[in-house]
């Protein structure tokens, strides 16, 4: 028996037990968009196209790259993206 798997809620229980995802923005206007290449084959080609579509619309885009798709992004990269961008597009498959 793993005794700490169920915890009792210390709050007034007015928020859902499942944490909500961050709301999606209604519009991209004025936001900085991060494009994260996870280093999977040809991911850069896909993101190049996404970038050109976004910049054509006059949006600000920043590019990032994970060293390898086999591991989570290094903490510095996560922090860099979190502080520099409002939204992130990440490719997850080949």
């Amino acid at each position, binding site marked *: *028996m793993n*005794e*700490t*798997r*169920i*915890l*009792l*809620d*210390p*709050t*007034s*229980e*007015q928020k859902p*037990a499942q*944490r909500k995802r961050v709301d999606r923005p209604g519009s991209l206007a004025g936001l900085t968009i991060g494009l994260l290449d996870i280093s999977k084959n040809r991911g850069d080609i896909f993101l190049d196209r996404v970038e050109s579509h976004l910049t054509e619309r006059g949006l600000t885009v920043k590019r990032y790259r994970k060293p390898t798709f086999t591991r989570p992004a290094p903490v510095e990269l996560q922090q860099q993206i979190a502080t520099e961008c409002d939204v992130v597009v990440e490719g997850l498959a080949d």
Partner: protein
Amino acid sequence: MGAQPDGLVAVVKQDCPTCTLVEPVLRQVEQADRSLTVYTQDNPEFPAGIASIDDTSLEYSYSLNIETVPTLLRFESGKEVARAIGWHRGEWEEVTGLHDLGAELPETRPGCGSKSVEPGIAEKLIVQFGESSLSARRIEIGASEDEMEACFERGWTDGLPVVPPTEERVLRILEGTRRAPDERVGIVPPNNNECTVEKIAINAVMAGCKPEYMPVVLTAVEAALTEEFGMHGLLATTFFAGPMVVVNGPIARQIGMNARVNALGQGNRANAAIGRTLQLVIRNVGGGIPGGVDRAMLGNPGKYTFCFAEREDDSPWESLSVERGFSPDTSTVSLFAASGVTPIMDQASREPDALCRSFAACLKAVGHPKSANSPAPVLVISPEHTSRFGDTGWSKGRFRETLNRYLEIPVEELVAGAGGIPGGISEDRAGDQKTLPKFRANTLHIVRAGGDAGLFSAIISSWGGSKSVTREIVV
């Protein structure tokens, strides 16, 4: 677990000498009455020669409410009709209806404690097999989630780790109070949410409390939720203050609170956990989050926890709670809005009067040297400084009066512009008065605490929107 079939039931453990003593008796009973069921708490091979049922999970022992082994019971029509505890020939013969049991054994032998009532086990069994009396929402933690991190991520902590509030831990801490888990304690600001004993217990677990702290914790929360104390404003102010808890009376010593060396500092579990619980209740039940309704411009480190006991036992003076009308044998909690600790250093004054002047000079700077009628701070007077008065026969009353005299500030120092400082009172507000008191209605709160050595005392300045509250702790 289904209903118990009719007949005899025995609960034993091999580790108990009385159980091993009655091993042959159990065989004797089984041969005469085939209805006998034996539950074994430790080694299922025991008793030898009997097909006993493995109760190492203690499920049967728990549901049969066994406190001692061996226990022998008889069931009829699914109901318990007889129970013998330990070994007592007469009782065993009565329960079984058999004669000449254990002829070679002594007449009687007390049993041993059941494994189901060992420390720390009971709460586990309630969670596993019992019906929970707790109603808080259950939060499931993902298999790969670390439960400490889960508490941080859900926003339940003050920035330091908390003890994960499992049902078992909450049940255990509730042993520290006679009050029912669903009893309402009050409405917690800023979101005005109802708070029960159970919610306080959950936060007390998280803060690191032991069960015996619960009466102090519950009283502190009650005091904080009074109209006079004004917790909502205290939370919302841009000023530094947060709630500070001072404990008086016998309970402080009983639960191991610190009133001596480093009393205002770290290192004592009761001091730390009680003060922290109050803050966590405001945060979690009330929804009072820094940057949300908590608008403190800087705050102060006491907002993690600020709680200590008065050093009463060797004091020449009556304590804070006695001054406030309680008996010295009554335990109380007093709450203050506290904005931080400012040292007073006076290692030179030998005469009580000189030390009063010295204290007054330091106290006059509270908030601003030009502010009169300020909210009363707490003066934490050290044992060595108290001795200056005690040794010369000065009562606390005389100390107060003298101090108040020196805390009168000449109006000319207070008017706007005086000293080249624009702030201050207008000349007409001063009226005919030549002086104004530094503190409103001359109400300075005096508490004695600290280590044996050190000719220092402390000013804990307050916040004007809150009134100090004292409540009796009912254990």
